[in-house]
């Protein structure tokens, strides 16, 4: 694929200090409208800069989209049933999720946020391991090195700098690794966002910054975050190209993100992609979105659903038929079933692990504390056994922790 986002480094590194903008600076600006290759009606929209990904690629990605929606639905259900503490759903944003993972190769890194569970799974991480954090038995469930997927970041925008570091190290080590770092529209207001883009540009490292602009940061609409023409316009301030893309258009996302990844891999440096999408559900199950937006607002986005339009497109071309749909649905069901079964199985938590990984070598104090907890739990167990045995209630209070 060509490096469709042109301009870039050569044009900016030189005379940025002069009074007149350097030649080619305009090329760093995003297009006036978000790039769209398949419209909400399922029709191909021609764009000179971005060829439509081929049918096979789209079909495979569509399968991931269907699975992504099922994962969101299943996770929401498990929260309602009390099986998970919380779930920030990407319902409506699945095209972004799927594309972010599919444009990367095995050697590439993904830096996701709490909302990007579907992207993490699409890049190959076991769904049950991903959901460990939200189930509440550990802070993370997977080894970031296994699939080159960083831990899901909650402190906003902090992960973007880590992405720059991984990319910089890859460059120094002569690896062809590209890093794709995700964040939300709200996170672009954090200082770390600014620092990450500036570092990436100054060190000219292979990072694709991918903003899912879903119009809200919890209750706060985008207009309270920025008055820039778009978030993608911020790129020019750092001397990297910015691009805007329809975040519910899987084809456009694959094309635009794919071009940015290729560009980064070819030594073209970082770029910033803003996807225009919408958070169809509340921030998390703990949020009441009716306090700050109307059902009508949400309703307007229903016809722009990413699955709907890709399905229409693929069916019209007869790339997708009933049999294919059934197969994708079955695959999605299988993933959902595995998640449901896994999360309905009670996990044994091991309190000894609390002390195990804080330092590479446990401190004397932590060894003492681990021992203290072990003894306390042993006393509790003995006391419980005694109270069952004797049915007497004069059991000492010894170490009886308040259990939730």
């Amino acid at each position, binding site marked *: 694929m060509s490096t469709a986002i042109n301009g870039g480094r050569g044009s900016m590194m030189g005379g940025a200090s002069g009074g007149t903008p350097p030649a080619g600076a305009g090329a760093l600006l995003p297009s006036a409208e978000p790039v769209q290759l398949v419209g909400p009606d399922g029709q191909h929209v021609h764009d000179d800069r971005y060829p439509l990904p081929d049918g096979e690629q789209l079909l495979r990605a569509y399968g991931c989209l269907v699975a992504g929606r099922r994962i969101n639905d299943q996770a929401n259900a498990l929260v309602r049933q009390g099986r998970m503490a919380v779930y920030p759903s990407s319902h409506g944003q699945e095209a972004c999720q799927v594309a972010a993972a599919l444009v990367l190769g095995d050697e590439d890194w993904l830096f996701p946020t709490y909302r990007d569970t579907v992207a993490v799974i699409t890049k190959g991480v076991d769904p049950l391991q991903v959901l460990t954090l939200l189930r509440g038995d550990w802070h993370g469930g997977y080894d970031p090195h296994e699939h080159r997927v960083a831990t899901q970041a909650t402190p906003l925008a902090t992960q973007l700098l880590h992405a720059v570091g991984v990319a910089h190290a890859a460059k120094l080590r002569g690896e062809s690794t590209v890093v794709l770092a995700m964040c939300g529209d709200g996170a672009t207001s954090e200082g770390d966002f600014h620092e990450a883009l500036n570092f990436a540009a100054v060190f000219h490292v292979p990072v694709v910054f991918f903003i899912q602009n879903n119009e809200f940061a919890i209750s706060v609409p985008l207009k309270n975050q920025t008055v820039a023409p778009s978030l993608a316009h911020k790129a020019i301030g750092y001397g990297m190209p910015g691009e805007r893309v329809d975040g519910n258009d899987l084809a456009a996302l694959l094309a635009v993100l794919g071009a940015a990844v290729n560009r980064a891999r070819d030594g073209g440096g970082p770029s910033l992609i803003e996807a225009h999408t919408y958070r169809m559900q509340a921030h998390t199950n703990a949020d009441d979105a009716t*306090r700050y937006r109307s059902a009508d607002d949400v309703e307007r986005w229903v016809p722009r659903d990413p699955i709907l339009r890709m399905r229409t497109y693929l069916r019209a071309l007869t790339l997708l038929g009933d049999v294919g749909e059934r197969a994708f649905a079955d695959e999605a069901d299988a993933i959902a079933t595995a998640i449901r079964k896994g999360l309905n199985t009670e996990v044994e938590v091991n309190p000894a692990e609390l002390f195990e990984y804080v330092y590479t070598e446990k401190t004397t104090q932590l060894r003492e504390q681990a021992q203290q907890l072990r003894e306390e739990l042993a006393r509790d167990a003995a006391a419980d056994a005694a109270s069952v045995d004797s049915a007497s209630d004069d059991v000492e209070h*010894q170490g009886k922790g308040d259990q939730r």
Partner: protein
Amino acid sequence: MTQTTEAPAARLTHQPEAVAAPPARATATFAKALNAALADTMAADPGVLMFGEDVGRLGGVFRITDGLTARFGEERCFDTPLAEAGIMGMAVGMAMNGMKPVVEMQFDAFAYPAFEQIVSHVAKMPNRTKGAVRLPIVIRIPYAGGIGGVEHHCDSSEAYYAHTPGLTVLAPATVRDAYFMLREAIAFPDPVVFLEPKKLYWSKEEVDLAELRRTFEDGQAPRRIGRAVVARPGTDATLISYGPSVPTALAAAAAAEEEGRSIEVIDLRSIVPFDDETVCASVRRTGRAVVVAEAPGFASVASEIVARVQERCFHSLAAPVLRVTGFDIPYPSPKLEHFYLPSVGRILDAVDNLQWED
């Protein structure tokens, strides 16, 4: 101070005798008390502003600012761009120019981006300028654990602030204190880190918020900054606690009573300034003490309390002062937090270890 907007409530509570049957006692939650404290202060003082993340239309993720934008307008209670350093830094400038900003950090761990502003400017400005610049800023922080929250939502971060000279650090533990202490904090001339124990937000007490307002505005509320309180009197040992650990300490004292031990519980309320007098008076009377706090124990507020008590009460002590704190580990995930939190059992164990002769 007159409260025209609240006249109906005021009339109601002015005529209790007119009601034949004893009136049902009003109750309020900790969260509602904080909300009322903000509303009453904003009504009384047009210089008070409230801002942060999701504090406007949403009313805050814990609803502490519920209704403030509707009542006082977007200029008085507003959402900022999502940036804690920005929120904090802007508060400094606003305070320099005559305002009294109250800012909300959405959760304890999300205050960390503001740390530089807090430590390098909020805490130091009055000293740098020899008092020419005072910063009457309140930094409200929903804090600590016990709510089954995921990572970064349950930190006990008080030691960072308490260790920083220039910051006043408060942690209320009762509904009544939540109201009075927030009002006092906003009226205070220096910056206050106001720690709101999340697990107490939904706790309830029999209080009439309109009555609290009148008490405060009539100057009848005794000062709480720098003043600890005996939350439960006792004679055999003292539990020293603050914020989220106070109810646990009280429960432990109640359990100890059943075993024949009379335990006094001190609620510090104010971590900085620290009330040596009240704490030491209690320990000198009882001769034994345990400090209870949720934060990791190493280099903690609890450590400071132990050191102070030991230095001042050595000759009254029958046993070393002990601590029941969190372990020195990152706050655990929801299914493991009960192993971490100070519990009644652990407190009673510590009390048992205070070298009793019997």
